[in-house]
């Protein structure tokens, strides 16, 4: 369990547009252990998806640039691989599930064919064998294999997401990047899909990076959490640490914004203001303007990562290393 599968070091990604440079990911460090599920939590535009896409190197080519950093996957730097070598990793060693299952599937091919295609791409097997394995995959995600030759439009949203998951897991990847896999689904269907992902993960031993904005989903499924804000990881720790001893004001603010099912209070406590413009980030702490704890020093220099407990780091100068 403690073996490192993926290690991201000082990753920085920029989008160059005609008008400005968007600093989407800044100096991100992240480790994923074997068999671990890590949740990347944050708001729209925080850079969660960009981090995941950088791992697979599928950022939109002309505008996006990985400026610096290393992405070590089983100790090889993915950023140094040639495009051809990278293709052997994508879908095979690292697979990705996208948010919207309606657009992730090809509407003019049968779902079975689309899964078999992925299998054949990475394995030297006959088409017949690939078909057989695709059928197995469908059954594994709870779709009867009689539906192999149906088209995506014949499936409901939840079923389509199952197909996408089947496809992603078809080559037994070591790492699964799941980008908001259940956001587009209804809660009862979400419960089915999360339950299924959980049991598949246990069976196949896959590590998962789960991108989500739903802290409820994180509490249900993740081992550890990284909170992303304005392109940085502001807090990182085990799920127990983050939920019980959250220390970064932003993380605390996120929890405060949630309507609690068992709370009697009539007002929510939102975080004031909005995320800073990623083309024009402040020099100091990115959360400074919205932070209830901010002091003058916060605006002056980027805050360091403070380790408040073993494995629990917080990017804030206002927390003390020994406070937790």
């Amino acid at each position, binding site marked *: 369990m403690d073996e490192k599968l993926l290690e991201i070091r000082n990753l920085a990604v920029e989008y160059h547009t005609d008008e400005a440079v968007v600093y989407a990911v800044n100096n991100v460090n992240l480790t994923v252990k074997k068999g671990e599920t890590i949740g990347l939590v944050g*708001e*729209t535009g925080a850079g969660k998806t960009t981090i995941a896409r950088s791992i697979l190197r599928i950022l939109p080519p002309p505008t996006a640039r990985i400026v610096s950093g290393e992405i070590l996957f089983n100790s090889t730097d993915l950023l140094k691989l040639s495009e051809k070598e990278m293709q052997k990793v994508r879908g095979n060693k690292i697979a990705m599930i996208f948010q919207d299952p309606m657009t992730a599937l090809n509407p003019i091919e049968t779902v079975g064919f689309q899964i078999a295609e992925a299998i054949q791409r990475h394995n030297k097997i006959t088409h017949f064998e690939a078909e057989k394995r695709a059928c197995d995959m469908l059954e594994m995600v709870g779709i009867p294999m009689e539906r192999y030759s149906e088209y995506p439009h014949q499936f*409901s*949203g*939840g*079923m389509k997401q199952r197909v996408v998951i089947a496809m992603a897991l078809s080559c037994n990847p070591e790492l699964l990047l799941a980008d908001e896999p259940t956001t587009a689904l*209804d*809660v*009862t*269907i*979400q*419960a*089915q899909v*999360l*339950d299924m992902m959980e049991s598949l993960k246990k069976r196949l031993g896959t590590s998962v990076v789960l991108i989500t*904005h*739903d*802290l*409820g*989903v*994180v*509490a*249900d499924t993740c081992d550890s959490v990284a909170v992303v804000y304005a392109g940085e990881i502001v807090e990182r720790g085990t*799920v*127990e640490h983050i*939920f*019980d001893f959250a220390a970064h004001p932003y993380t605390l*603010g*996120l*929890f*405060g*914004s*949630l*309507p*609690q*099912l068992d*709370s009697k209070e*009539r*007002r*929510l*406590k*939102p*975080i004031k203001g*909005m995320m800073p413009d990623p083309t024009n980030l402040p020099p100091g702490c990115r959360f400074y303007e919205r932070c209830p704890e901010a002091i003058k020093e916060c605006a002056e220099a980027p805050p360091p990562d403070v380790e408040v407990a073993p494995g629990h780091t917080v990017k804030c100068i206002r927390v003390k290393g020994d406070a937790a």
Partner: protein
Amino acid sequence: MTPLLEVRNLKKYFKTRYGLLHAVDDVSFTLDRGKTLGVVGESGCGKTTLGRTVLHLTEPTDGQIFFEGRDIMYPKKRELRKLRENMQIIFQDPYSSLNPRMTVSEAIMEPLILRGGMSNDEMLAETRKLMDTVGLASRFENSYPHELDGGRRQRIGIARALALKPKFIVCDEPVSALDVSIQAQIINLMLDLQEEFGLTYMFVTHDLSVVKYISDEIMVMYLGQVVEKAPSDELFANTLHPYSKALLSAIPIPNIHKKRKRILLRGEITSPVNPKPGCRFMARCDYAREECNEPQVLEESSPGHFVACCRYKEIMTS
């Protein structure tokens, strides 16, 4: 006192190639002034259609609607126009419900222009006041929707709905497209406005934690029908219908110490086209029996708590 809104046996059927789609099937409720009715259910359960039908945005098929005691089931065109001053809607998607070629102040002023009877200066003053009410800084007056983020756009939608000082607002998933921190800001704003103007809300959503937070009473819908209706706290404390139970248990709770057992539903929502007369949830229900093939009626289990399940008593004791 007459309730602000009373809906009796409201039906909305759509003709499709395959038969009649029962989008809203025999829904009744009353809504008192200043209260909030939450309508929850999954996609396709008819909750949005219900809201739109009440407002005559789609014409109801059958039933009765009373607004302040007045029958408004078949209003004349002029009557409807007058009615709409009092009944407004906030839409789900602040990205597509605004005209991209109208500035913020034009968009908010539009309802005032349509109603007429105000001079330009008066309208401009009123628009500024509305912007202030919903927390939009006056510097955005001449901005276009694409220049603003989701939260601010939703504030425009709210200002538009408030412009004619309505009594009743249907809120159709008003915060579903927003991030949690922004969502909290908008919910607080809506609560403040309700207090300030004595508004009555019908809050349509699939997000159960939000609905519990904001509603006085909650109605759970499944395939066009109300399966359970109860005061908000009562529904969460004493869930009776098997569908509501599964729905509530499926909400992921942001708390690692309260691991609940999720009730996993088999299969997915069935087709609302030409449904059978019995319980519509039957195919996915663990408790389904022979008698569930009979039509289910809403039964009052305790004061104010209604449930449409013939087996709820047995389930409760088991």
